């Protein structure tokens, strides 16, 4: 069982690698497509996984992950459990700004299967930002994709002077107010 590490491989030139982890494959694919539609000045490759750990056999072919996005559906308790078990296979140094939690289905209070507080607590425990969105709406999906592309740019080290760690501490500041 390979633990995902942020710095065990060399980065590729002018590119960022995003790993989407979530139990809902259809939503995951839609989000990935939305991300690829976004305008950008660097190469993005997106890896999709339903859960971690990633299989170890093709590990040598896999690039270095710059940002891991855990997708949680507020309507499915399983998605939260799935993320919680997957988190065990992520190296601690990833949580210095290279992980984020993406919560979808927000606003559908009547369909809630998870308490929003539980997700917030997860974000606090793992020192990572929690983004709330509704991926089933096209507009919000595009905005979320844009947000993730910008975060990926920073996490891949393509923005001079801003590191993933400084970015995530900025996010935390605004979160604590």
């Amino acid at each position, binding site marked *: 069982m390979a633990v995902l590490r942020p710095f065990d491989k060399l980065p590729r030139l002018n590119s960022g690698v995003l790993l989407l982890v979530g139990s809902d494959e259809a939503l995951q694919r839609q989000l990935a497509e939305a991300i690829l539609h976004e305008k950008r000045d660097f190469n993005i490759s997106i890896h999709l996984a339903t859960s971690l750990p990633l299989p170890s056999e093709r590990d040598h072919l896999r690039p270095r992950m710059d940002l891991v996005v855990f997708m949680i559906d507020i309507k499915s308790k399983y998605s939260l459990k799935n993320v919680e078990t997957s988190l065990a296979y992520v190296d601690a140094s990833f949580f210095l700004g290279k992980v984020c939690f993406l919560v979808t289905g927000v606003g559908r209070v*009547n369909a809630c*299967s998870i308490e929003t507080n539980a997700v917030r607590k997860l974000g606090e425990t793992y020192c990572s930002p929690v983004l709330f969105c509704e991926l089933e709406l096209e507009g919000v999906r595009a905005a979320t994709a844009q947000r993730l592309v910008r975060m990926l740019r920073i996490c891949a080290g393509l923005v001079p002077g801003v590191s993933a760690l400084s970015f995530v501490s900025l996010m935390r500041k605004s979160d604590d*107010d």
Partner: protein
Amino acid sequence: MAEGRAPRAGADGKKFERRRRAAAAMAEEAPEGGAVRTLPSLRRLSRALPFGRSHGRLIVPALCSQEKADPQKTAFVLRKAWTLYSVTPLYGFRRARLRDYARLLGAFIAAEKQKGLAVEVGVELDIKVALSSLADIRGSELDQAALLVQLSSRSRSSSRNSEDKPVWLGWFCSVFGDELSESVPEHFTCLPLFLSHGAESYTALVGSWFQKTFDCCFRRLAISPLNLSWMVAMWAGCKLDRAASAVELVFSVPRLAQPLDISYAIHPEDAKALWDTVQKTPGEITHEEVDVFMDCLYAHFHRHFKIHLSAAKLVKISTAIASAHCDGIVKILHSQYLPGVLMLLTELAISQIQ
């Protein structure tokens, strides 16, 4: 997401406290002498027993009012499917004028039926309206007595002394709705929960009359899967003095071409035994306990059928106490737990209003 954090935590604390009270109320009501089993039995689930049996031994809790409540007066509530609504406080409502209100509401319904033609107030109409107070259905001193609205149709053909046929029932209530009634100004009456039984067209008519007359707002009260899991945990753990029907959970699997529902029935004694092993302090329910209880049920199902029920949406629960659908339809089956159930629903209605 950041601005509301501190108050939200406070609200949750309060909610938790209220649930604890609800649980305590239910625990107090439980009769003594039920054999507690520690391990779920492997007995096959027998067919649900009918509910007809009366229960002479049980006493309706003195919770609903100071004087002992009469089970006959609240019996109409039981075994009916009620559609739930939340109602904002009524402005200028006076209990002394119930008779006038009934007349006006009757005329309003008749006028609406005639598409706006003028109707004389007070004459005999097709639909008879009766408004009455139900002093038995209330929680604390601060709660207003429940208000019952009955619509019945007059039979023209048959003789005068024949009974009117009831066509629609609706009632407003507040059971331990202190949170809301403490905070409203004078001239407002807090009856945040509205339950209706009958044709939806009548619900719409009565609702619009109340909205116009008392400047309030009706909204359908849906129950989230999260709250349904609270209910099933609370009600599965209740002691009953008679053989109870199965605890049933209905899940709907999302994102399929054809709708697929999964029904998961558990023997009530097994459900209670499981809850007893999960619950740490009797009369108190925590979020973690509900989580563990549901996870145990999910794990059991997964072991047998390799299906993650936690990925599906919980749409309906039924227990011996009551059944609830996520669309906001509730059936209360047991008079003993009526205050507890209404208290929980009042709480949900208040949280929707706020």
